């Protein structure tokens, strides 16, 4: 028993942390209808290492690769916040969706140009939550906490911009700067978490608990509590399931999140 706990403790702690931050950000994502954001930002971040490899032949985990990824993410955050303010003809989700396609093509293009550039794109998808090291977890914890505190301090402003963007914008409240900060904090959190959780787990933790919570509650506080509760429960169940039946960790957690959502949808009918 003690062995199982020791083995599953690091992944469980990482899950809890991710549930904490993504459960909250997910409510924003659902309100804003930007379901694509996580996959798009993760894909844009992945252009960084490919770019660094082609120009400087630097390793996937080197500082330069991270700096490039971060640079692209800042550009993306700037781009989304400007376009959202200026272009009203198509939903911002469509712009995010197209930027995903461009980023994916750019990464493939760069890797095809540089022979031998075997940056592990597929590893990014599933992550390696089971092998999360305590150092990585600690770094994530500090950054999540920072982003969390920042969002907590300015929670009203972020909430209002997500809830009724047009109205806030119309009232002359400067939305573009706050919008930029929203996308940037989101990008930072995703950049760090992808290495541990993988895109798929993060995406699911972002969308599923928030959707689940929106079924049962209206106020943000209640939704947050429900989302966190579901996230923690599903992580625990998923990890134990994957350990006993030998399935991949991340996908198992996602499967439990999905199952609870389906059950909830059937019950609510």
């Amino acid at each position, binding site marked *: 028993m003690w062995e199982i706990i020791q083995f599953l403790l690091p992944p469980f702690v990482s899950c809890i942390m991710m549930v904490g931050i993504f459960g909250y950000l997910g409510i924003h994502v659902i309100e804003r209808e930007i379901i694509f954001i996580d996959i798009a930002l993760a894909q844009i971040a992945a252009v960084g290492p490919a770019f660094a490899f082609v120009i400087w032949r630097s390793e996937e985990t080197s500082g330069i690769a991270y700096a490039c990824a971060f640079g692209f993410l800042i550009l993306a955050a700037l781009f989304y916040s400007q*376009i959202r303010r*200026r272009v009203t003809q198509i939903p911002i989700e*469509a712009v995010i969706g197209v930027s995903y396609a461009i980023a994916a093509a750019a990464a493939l293009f760069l890797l095809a140009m540089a022979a031998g550039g075997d940056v592990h794109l597929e590893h990014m998808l599933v992550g390696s939550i089971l092998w999360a090291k305590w150092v990585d977890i600690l770094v994530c914890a500090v950054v999540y906490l920072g982003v969390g505190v920042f969002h907590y301090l300015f929670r009203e402003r972020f909430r209002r911009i997500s809830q009724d963007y047009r109205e806030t914008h119309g009232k002359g409240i400067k939305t573009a700067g706050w919008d930029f900060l929203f996308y940037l904090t989101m990008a930072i959190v995703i950049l760090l978490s992808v290495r541990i959780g993988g895109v798929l787990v993060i995406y699911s933790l972002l969308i599923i608990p928030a959707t689940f919570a929106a079924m049962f509650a209206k106020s943000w506080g209640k939704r947050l509590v429900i989302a966190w509760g579901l996230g923690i429960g599903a992580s625990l169940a998923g990890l134990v399931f994957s350990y006993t039946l030998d399935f991949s960790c991340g996908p198992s957690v996602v499967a439990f999140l999905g199952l609870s959502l389906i059950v909830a949808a059937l019950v609510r009918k």
Partner: protein
Amino acid sequence: MLETLRFLSTQIVLLFVVTSVHTYIGLHIIRRGLIFSDLSLDQLAAFGVIVGIGLGIQGGTTGSYFLSFIAVFIGSVLLAYVKPKNERIPHEAVIGIIYGLALVASIMVADKFSGGATYVTQTLGGCMLWVNWNLVIVTVSAYIVIAVFLYKCRHKFVAITDKSEKVQKENFWDLCFFLCQGIITVLIVPIAGVLLAYAFLMIPAATAALFTKGWGSGLRIGWGFGFFASIVGLFSSYYLRLPYGPTLVLTLGLMFMIALIIRAYVPERKA
């Protein structure tokens, strides 16, 4: 020379057919804001192939296509009939979740047979099979049938997207629509890969939607833009020896970015 001409003409025919149908479906998708529907159907088609491989059915065979169709059919039913009544939950979120779960199902099935992970990556990136005339003929004929069907029933589809009038049996028509999208997905993904198919659906339509609200004008802009961009992409990839799929997507994408910037900084003319 003749070889080059033959190769390029096959490509151009295929690009022309793909652009025309995808732009129309894409316009609906963009105007409804259901951007994820394409990736969801793609992933379900891939799930069908992966289940087939698990059962010993090779990819690219009739059996494998059949399993893909079944998965896509189930997906279309889900897309058309699972609509959240709760206004706090956007339809796009439901479709996004279907995508996530289809991906998880693919990974978990692939977990259980050796080399499964490779198939997941392959179906994700799409493996660019070399285009041959047989495949082109099948694909083109299926596309034409679908185009005729979409044209015949255009009033229903447009009324649902524009919400201009109440359509009887709306879910049934949605099912027909997503099924068309699903069928072209199953056909085009083995040829072009997920990314290129998705780009053709989204980018010309999104560009058109930036500049017009009409359907006829939207199609003309989308077709003109899509065809021009893909021909530029095709020729630059051929003569500069650049990777085919990514070059095409990047050409489409960069032109979309230019259009977006023009739209953002040049004020719209008031009619």
